[in-house]
C-alpha cells in the first residue's frame, strides 16, 4: 500500500488521535479519555441522522427513477437540500396527541425507538480501526439491541389508542419475533468460521478476497440474513406493520411532526445499520483492494441499501400468512441446514466440500420450496338442478 493510500485509509483515525493529542497538552488524562469517548459518540450521533436524511433522498430518487419519474430535484442542486427542507417542515408542524392517548408513553415511544437504532452504530466497523467500541460480543450485542426495537413500536401503537396502530403493533410483534430467529441462526455459521463474536475480528477473518459470501454457506447465509434484515426494519415487501393501504400508517398513525420524523429516523438508521452489519458479516466489511477501507465499507453498505430500495420499487406486500410461512417454513429450516453445511465445508477441504455444500443447499432449497408449494384448491363446479 503506498503512503498516499494509507494516509487516506487512516485519515479519520489520525484526525481523532491528533485532536486528542492537542487536548492532552491542556487537559488532564481523565479528560482526554472522556474526550475520546465524546468524539466517537458525537461522530456517531451526527452520522446517524445525516445518513437518515440522505437515505430518504436516495430512496425517493431511486424509487422515482424506477417508476419513470425524477424524484425530488427542486431544492438545491439535484434536490440535495430536500432533506433539510423536510426537516424544517417536520419541526414546524403541529404536534397532535390524541385525547385518549396515554400521553407519557405516546411521548416516550419515538424517543426510545431511536436509542437502539443509534446504539447499533457502536459496533459497526466503518473502516480499518474505525469501530467505535470493539466489543468482544459485538454480533451478540447487535442482535440483542436490535431486538429491543419491538418495545417502542409496542409503546407507540398501544399508547395511540387507535385500531390501526394496534393492528400495526401486533403485526410488528409477530413479524419481528419470527424474523429474529432465522436472522440470528444465519449469523451462526459466520461466528463458527471466524471463531469470534467481535465485529472487527470477523472482518479481519475475511482478509483479502476471502469474503464469506463467496462460499456456498456464506451465500445462502447472506441471502437469508438480508431477507431477514429487510423484514426487521419493516421495509417493503415486509412492511405489514405500516401498510399504507391497509393501516393508514400502522403503529405511527397517530404521530405527527417531529415524533413522526423520529420514527422515520429510526427506520432509516435501522436500514443503514442492518445493511452495515450484513456487509460486516458476509461481504468482508471494509476489506477490499485499491480503495481506502472506509470507501469500500460505504460502497458496499449503500449497494445493499440500494437493493432494499430496489425491493421496495419492485415487490408487492406479503400477506400475513405468507410472511409467517416464509420465516418459519423456508428460512428457518434453511438456516439449520446452512449451519450443518458450514461445518461440512470446514471439515472437508478442497473441491469436494465446495460442491457437496452447494449441492446440499440447492437440494434443501428446492425440497423446501416443493414442500411449501401452496395448495391450490380444486375448482368447484356447481350444477344447477332444473
Amino acid at each position, binding site marked *: 500500500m503506498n503512503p498516499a493510500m494509507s494516509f487516506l485509509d487512516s485519515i479519520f483515525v489520525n484526525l481523532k488521535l491528533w485532536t486528542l493529542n492537542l487536548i492532552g497538552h491542556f487537559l488532564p488524562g481523565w479528560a482526554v479519555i472522556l474526550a475520546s469517548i465524546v468524539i466517537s459518540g458525537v461522530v456517531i450521533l451526527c452520522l446517524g441522522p445525516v445518513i437518515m436524511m440522505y437515505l430518504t433522498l436516495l430512496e425517493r430518487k*431511486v424509487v422515482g*427513477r*424506477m417508476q*419513470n419519474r*425524477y424524484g425530488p430535484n427542486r431544492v438545491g442542486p439535484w434536490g440535495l437540500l430536500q432533506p433539510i427542507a423536510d426537516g424544517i417542515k417536520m419541526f414546524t408542524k403541529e404536534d397532535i396527541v390524541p385525547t385518549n392517548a396515554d400521553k407519557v408513553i405516546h411521548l416516550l415511544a419515538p424517543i426510545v425507538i431511536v436509542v437502539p437504532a443509534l446504539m447499533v452504530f457502536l459496533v459497526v466497523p466503518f473502516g480499518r480501526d474505525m469501530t467505535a467500541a470493539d466489543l468482544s460480543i459485538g454480533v451478540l450485542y447487535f442482535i440483542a439491541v436490535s431486538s429491543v426495537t419491538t418495545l417502542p413500536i409496542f409503546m407507540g401503537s398501544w399508547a395511540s389508542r387507535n385500531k390501526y396502530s394496534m393492528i400495526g403493533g401486533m403485526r410488528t410483534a409477530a413479524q419481528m419475533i419470527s424474523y429474529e430467529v432465522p436472522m440470528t441462526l444465519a449469523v451462526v455459521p459466520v461466528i463458527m468460521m471466524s471463531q469470534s463474536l467481535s465485529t472487527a475480528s470477523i472482518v479481519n477473518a475475511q482478509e483479502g478476497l476471502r469474503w464469506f459470501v463467496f462460499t456456498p454457506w456464506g451465500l445462502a447465509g447472506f441471502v437469508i440474513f438480508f431477507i431477514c434484515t429487510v423484514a426487521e426494519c419493516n421495509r417493503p415487501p415486509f412492511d405489514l406493520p405500516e401498510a399504507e393501504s391497509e393501516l393508514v400508517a400502522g403503529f405511527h398513525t397517530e404521530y405527527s411532526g417531529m415524533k413522526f420524523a423520529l420514527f422515520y429516523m429510526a427506520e432509516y438508521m435501522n436500514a443503514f445499520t442492518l445493511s452495515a452489519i450484513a456487509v460486516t458479516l458476509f461481504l468482508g466489511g471494509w476489506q477490499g483492494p485499491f480503495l481506502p477501507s472506509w470507501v469500500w465499507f460505504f460502497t458496499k453498505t449503500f449497494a445493499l441499501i440500494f437493493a432494499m430500495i*430496489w425491493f421496495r420499487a*419492485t415487490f408487492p406486500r406479503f400477506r400475513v400468512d405468507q410472511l409467517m410461512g416464509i420465516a418459519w417454513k423456508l428460512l428457518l429450516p434453511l438456516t439449520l441446514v446452512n449451519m450443518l453445511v458450514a461445518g461440512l465445508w470446514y471439515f472437508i477441504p478442497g473441491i469436494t466440500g465446495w460442491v457437496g455444500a452447494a449441492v446440499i443447499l440447492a437440494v434443501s432449497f*428446492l425440497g423446501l420450496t416443493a414442500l411449501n408449494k401452496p395448495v*391450490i384448491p380444486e*375448482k368447484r363446479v356447481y350444477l344447477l338442478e332444473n
Partner: protein
Amino acid sequence: MTRPQIAKEKNPVFGTGILQGMWVTMKNFIDSYFKKADQGGIFTIQYPEELCRISENSRNFPFLVYDAAPDSPRCTACGICERECPTKCIHVEMAKDTAGKPLRKPAVFEIDYGLCMNCGMCEDVCPFDSIFMDRVYEIAGRDRTKDMLIGKDALLKPNAYFQKIRPKDAADIDARRKAAEAKKAAAARPATPPDAGGTAS
C-alpha cells in the same frame, strides 16, 4: 374436473419470478438515465421550465379579437354571448357617444374567469367572429374578485395572435370573412358611382 392452471410452467424454480420482476424495475432505472421519453425513459415535463405541448384544438378561456387596432374590435357589443353564457360570467355594455347614441362597440367587456367554465358557447354563438377561446392557463391570482375579473383591455388581442395559436380555425374564419366582405362589396357595387367601376365595363 381439471385443476385451474396457474402460469407456473414459465417459472420452474421458486424465485425466478422474483428475479424477473427485479429486472423490470432495474431496466426502468437504467432507462431513466439513458433513454428518451418516447423510448421508455422519464416522460415527466418539468413545468415551469418546460411547458406541455398544447394541441391546436385545446382551449380554455375566451378572449376578443381585433383586426386593425384595439379601438375598433370586431365585437359590436350585441350581448348575445352575455345572454348565452351558462354561468353568466360575461358582462357587456355598449359604448355611447357624447350625444347618447349607441356606438357598435363595447364600452365595458368583462369576463369573470373565476366563473367561466370553459364551455365555449360564446365562441359558438358570436355572429361577428369576435370572441374565441384562448389557451392561456397561467392566470392564477391572489384575489378572486379582482384578479379573476378580466377587463376589455386585457381581453382584446390582435388577430395575429389568434392566427398563431389556432392557425387552422383562424384561416377558415379569415377566408370566410374575406368572402363575406367581397360579397358585401359586390352587392354594394351597383350603388357606387359609375366612374368608380368604370374600368371594368
